[in-house]
């Protein structure tokens, strides 16, 4: 992982909690799967973000913010550090007309993106 340890701590915390117990997902706005090991399969086919939009905190916020203008297909291809996602959000705000997210929302979204679409992602 290339992103700074300090900023990545919340990400690591979620990464550790999620596989351990289903109740860890109670804080997520998305429906919590009964068995987190099969989390991806638990998302409904008709889910508005698609069945391959990963479960976890920030799922809806990120899906709505990014999906407002472009397909989530482009997000799902990326593999970026938290710092690079942060820069990309700046670019979206400064150059592409995206509304600037509140600090707490921005952190939630960055955590989600860095958790699921980091440099170790595997292209499908």
């Amino acid at each position: 992982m290339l992103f700074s340890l300090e900023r990545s701590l919340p990400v690591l915390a979620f990464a550790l909690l999620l596989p351990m117990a289903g109740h860890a997902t109670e804080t997520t706005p998305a429906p919590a799967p009964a068995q987190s090991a099969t989390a991806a399969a638990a998302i409904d086919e008709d889910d508005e973000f698609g069945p391959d939009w990963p479960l976890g905190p920030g799922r809806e916020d990120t899906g709505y913010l990014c999906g407002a203008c472009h397909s989530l297909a482009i997000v799902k291809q990326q593999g970026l550090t938290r710092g690079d996602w942060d820069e990309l959000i700046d670019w979206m705000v400064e150059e592409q007309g995206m509304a600037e997210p509140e600090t707490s929302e921005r952190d939630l979204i960055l955590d989600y993106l860095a958790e699921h679409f980091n440099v170790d992602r595997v292209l499908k």
Partner: protein
Amino acid sequence: MPSGKQDRGLCELYQQDPERADKLVFGREAHKDRRGFLRGAGLATMGAMLGATIPFHRNFPAGLIPAAMADDGEMALFKTKDGLTLLNDRPINAETPPHLLDDPVTPNERHFVRNNGIVPDIAYEMDASDWRLKIDGEVNTPLEFSLEELKSKFENVTLKLQIECGGNGRAAFNPPARGNQWTLGAIGNAEWTGVRYADVLKAAGVKDSAIYTAHYSLDGHLSGDPEKLPISRGVPLAKAMEPHSIIAFAMNGEPIPALHGFPVRTICPGWAGSTSQKWLQRIELRNVVHDGPKMTGTSYRVPYYPVAPGTKVDKADFKIMEAMPVKSLITTPQTNQTIAERRLALRGHAWAGDNSVSRVDISHDFGATWTQADLAPPPNPYSWQTWSAEVTFPEKGYYEVWARATDDKGNSQPFAINWNPKGYLNNSMHRIAVTVSA
């Protein structure tokens, strides 16, 4: 959630003139009773787009948009494509698997698509009667042309021209670079008809102060903001004046398809595909390097010195990409085939930005030895060149065939990627896997 604008496209075409839409979209004509498909015209196309045969086709009313396509927007346009890999559906970005690029001239249905914005209404309607192309800026006489005027006032030229996305090959970058993760197939070599970019600029009179062109187009910004342009790029004046840079109005003998830039687009062959701008409506000559969207920052730019993978590079150290580097593809056979014979015929294409390809070499032993392929000359400058070769495998087992092109300036394709932060210019060698079973 597609925007309203996207939703209108095909539906609008059908609302305006349903039978013309039948003809344009499917090549369909109905029987006298306004049902069915006269002499079967358009039936196969519609079936292919729907992914099924239509048992009751004789009853299908004329001018009726198939319900399966009624609210599909840009995806309905994408259904005209054959075998492409869809990377992004809003905006449409799709590449062609190498084995589907075997034709010397890339058919429309197999040409890759790289869009930055929303396909404009004019491209769905395929009606340029209200469209004009404006030429202004550093010219003696600003000019304006209708499509018919553009076609009739200047000599028409027909050329096979290669266009490659600047980010083709980005998927192989490690660490990953942001953007569409193109693998190998963001390259095409269609036959384009148009007028020379230079002839149009000369008609307006190029002032000495002009150094760069600026392209402005009709595609919509993804945010829906009508004041924003998704992309506005240009080229140095010398590239615009090069006789193979054209303003095209036909692709493989047909009006340019909606996804590819109807009614006209620039083709600046051999350069990053973004300089070949679709849905063109204005060319401005500028006395500075153009600074439109995706000209500045790190867009279509690379560091002017080599960097280690993962390096953070200051924006001031980036330069604009111009010509694409020498590259080749193996288009026959498809990768990952098992063959029962020891001999294998190979075929593919090679291209080299502003240069020409002088040789292509093939290896079937992981680069230890190389054999020169037969290389055809290009039908015209800036077309890709077709090569062929044959290899004989010594025994059964797993092999890789690698192709390496060399241009007339002595540049060859590298094995490794010259990493850069935005994932451009990957011209590393194409490798295919072949298993010999006996």
